[in-house]
């Protein structure tokens, strides 16, 4: 086909990207999640394990599998990529070390599990084929090592997405390494630790083997040293500010991306509030980090309820009253309507017509302060609160005009 030689690209820039000039801009550029450092702090142990595994397999000329798990943002993919670039360097420096091919696929970047075959084949040989044909070609490729010397490292990210009913894709991926001539090393990455037991058939999890590794979420000390290592040589942050961000993130998820994002947002906030600073240039302090934390972690529901219109607030109160009276966590629109009208009467407001109250109800449902059963029978539809009843009372307590 004529499209074969096209190299995809996006229109080029007119002016090149500005390089950072000020301290805070430098800090921000380094704090970006994409600015992965050459060596990852706090993951030395995992690095060693994976490195020894892959290296020994390459040197022995055998195949094998390794399953790597951990919650998002704990440095799984980054560590594996680092191992690969380290091995690559070794290939260049050490003449005895055999060349190897690296093939990367990501379950989330495929439209459908069987596309994995197409991607692997394309990365290996540059051939284009349909999923079925690609699977056959790969089968042949790994059984007969005709004219091929290099070992292959296959990196499969987001493994759980490759699950199909018959699990053919997973089976193939973990079966190839056990072929005598394949010399294939598979590194599979996913989030859950018990994935092999949970979703895979026995014959697949037995092929996957027991070489497994779990990435623990970062502790606050680790997060702190990650941020500090990125900011090395830059006077941008107060040490306490970093600690606050690290402790908060470690308490919630231990996701390094989150810690970096918070610090980056804090530098932005520090930059905008700069003029008040007197002496040695802008420094990101506790208050900036704190502002960034509240911005990223807080729920806007209380504010939304406070900013709602009078009748929307009355409707929320009517729901709370109805729940208190019935003792249930669910009420029909009809019942809430009666409460709404009686609250209106109590407060000396003219009660609105049913259509208006229904509109108020659907508005609250569209921003998910309440949950509404879908359907058109308006009087009978059931309503639930999406916030706790205490939040409703708290938000509306001193706020009715």
């Amino acid at each position, binding site marked *: 086909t004529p*499209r074969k030689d*096209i190299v*995809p*690209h*996006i*229109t*080029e*820039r*007119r*002016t090149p*990207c500005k390089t*950072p000039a000020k301290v805070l*801009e430098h800090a921000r*550029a380094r704090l*970006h*999640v*994409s600015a*992965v450092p050459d060596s990852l702090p706090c993951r030395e142990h995992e690095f060693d394990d994976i490195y020894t595994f892959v290296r020994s397999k390459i040197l022995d000329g055998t195949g094998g599998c390794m399953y790597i798990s951990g*919650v*998002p*943002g704990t440095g799984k993919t980054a560590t594996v990529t680092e191992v690969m670039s380290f091995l690559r360097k070794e290939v260049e420096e050490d003449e005895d070390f055999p060349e190897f091919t690296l093939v990367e696929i990501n379950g*989330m*970047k*495929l*439209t*459908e599990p069987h*596309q994995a075959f*197409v991607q692997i084949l394309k990365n290996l040989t540059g051939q284009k084929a349909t999923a079925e044909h690609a699977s056959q070609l790969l089968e042949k490729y790994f059984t007969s090592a005709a004219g091929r010397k290099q070992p292959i490292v296959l990196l499969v990210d*987001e493994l759980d997405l490759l699950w199909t009913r018959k699990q053919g894709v997973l089976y193939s991926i973990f079966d190839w390494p056990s072929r005598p001539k394949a010399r294939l090393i598979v590194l599979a990455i996913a*989030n859950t630790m018990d994935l092999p037991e949970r979703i895979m058939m026995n014959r697949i999890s037995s092929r996957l083997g027991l070489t497994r590794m779990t990435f623990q979420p970062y502790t606050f000390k680790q997060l702190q040293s990650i941020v500090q290592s990125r900011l090395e040589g830059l006077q941008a942050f107060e040490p306490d500010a970093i600690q606050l961000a690290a402790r908060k993130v470690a308490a919630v*998820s231990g*996701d390094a*991306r*989150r810690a970096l994002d918070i610090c980056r*947002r804090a530098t932005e906030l520090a930059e905008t509030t700069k003029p008040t600073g007197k002496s040695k240039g802008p420094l990101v302090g506790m208050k900036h980090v704190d502002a960034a934390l509240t911005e*990223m972690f807080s729920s*806007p*529901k209380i*504010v*939304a309820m406070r900013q*709602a*219109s*009078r*009748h929307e607030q009355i409707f929320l109160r009517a729901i709370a009253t109805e729940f208190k009276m019935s003792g249930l966590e669910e009420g029909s629109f*009809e019942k809430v309507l009666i409460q709404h009208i009686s609250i209106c009467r109590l407060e000396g407001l003219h009660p*609105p*017509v*049913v259509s*208006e109250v229904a*509109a108020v109800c659907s*508005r609250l449902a*569209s*921003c*998910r302060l309440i949950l509404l059963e879908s359907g*058109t*029978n*308006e*009087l*009978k539809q059931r309503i639930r609160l*999406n916030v706790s009843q205490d939040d409703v009372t708290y938000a509306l307590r001193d706020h009715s005009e």
Partner: protein
Amino acid sequence: MSHLQEAFRKTFPAIMPKRNCRREPLGGSTIDRVQSILRRRVCRIEVPPKDIIEENLKEQRQHLVDLINRCAVRGESNSAIVTGPHGSGKTMLVSSVLREIESNPKVSKNLLIIRLNGLLQTDDKIAIQEITRQLQLDNVVGDKVFGSFAENLAFLLEALKRGSDTAQSVLFILEEFDLFAHHKNQTLLYNLFDICQSAQTPIAVIGVTRRLDVVELLEKRVKSRFSHRHIHVFNSLAFPAYKEVCKRVLTLPAEVGDAKFVKRWNQDIEALCSNATVHDVLKKTYQLDKSICRLQSLLLLPICKVTEDHPAIEAVDLVESSKHLGADSKAAMLHGISVLQLALVIAMKHLTDLYEGDPFNFEMLYNEYLKFVQRKAHVVQSFEKPVVLKAFEHLVSLEIVKPVDGHGSRTQKEYRAMSLLVTSAQLMDVLNTYPGCPSELKHWASNPLPS
């Protein structure tokens, strides 16, 4: 306006308005010009100028402008979500920011803008085709995108991966962001956020949605890649400011032409806004819904009424318009039914009261109707069963009464469990205003027959 039209207008704001209402500075009388200026404001075709938006949304706007500027100038990737209830000005905020950016050549020549809408791009396949088309990648010929879904995705990712810092920055604006989260595996969102967080083409992803809990819809690996910047927009106007907005919407600029007319009009508006009746109408609207959208629809009718014979907006117009907006649709529907159907609705009401909200069926209803008719045979004509059934089915089709178990049930229609969707207050209101309603019916409605 239908959802699709609205989605289209949001996605391609530059195309729709031009085609629909081209501004005509030359032709037409003064009144026509007044109409066209005011309508452009009220129908949300015109984005209000920067300083007006900044009155309330200064921080939010600055955050967005900074974010996009940094993406375009420094190549820093970012993601953010703009949330807020309906009519709070999310899209307006974004379009105002885009306008500012387009007028700044430093930024605009390094930035490609991709607009997507969850209502139009209902799955990832369509969304990716649309992105490819708007980016004008090489597999696009004319307006047609070639290749399968998998090829398109691979091609797009490849393109975005290749141009690390030489390529133009890309700004993605995803309207109705929550609908994108319902796509299979959230592939599109994962990939966009992943590009944001890795050293590829600099992109900025801005989601616009009403749902406050949109982040909870994201899968955990997608959520981890999202940088958790929330920009909240609320209807936070206090009532005096709300009134001020109303005045500003109606006030004419000097360029209408006829200076004398403009002066008089603006004086009239001034007087109108201090009128007590208008105050009440606005207050009532404000208490129901604080959004500017509602105010605009309230003002639309009075504006349309401005003609040569009626060259100023009066308080009566606003009152009438508010009545139109606040009409009870069910009551309006009940006004149009026949006396027999009205009798049936009353019977249903009694049944609902009697069985405390439990559903009833047609046979029970017919029985109740017969009891009434037999006692008052001299006033209300008694109808045969088929006629009553027909009347009943008409009520079902109007959805005044609905089957409890949905449409799929195979029960005979006489025995289907039904529930009434009219409150007794609504019914009483209708009976009092129904033209030529027999007094027996009214009596029956308030006093159920002894069983």
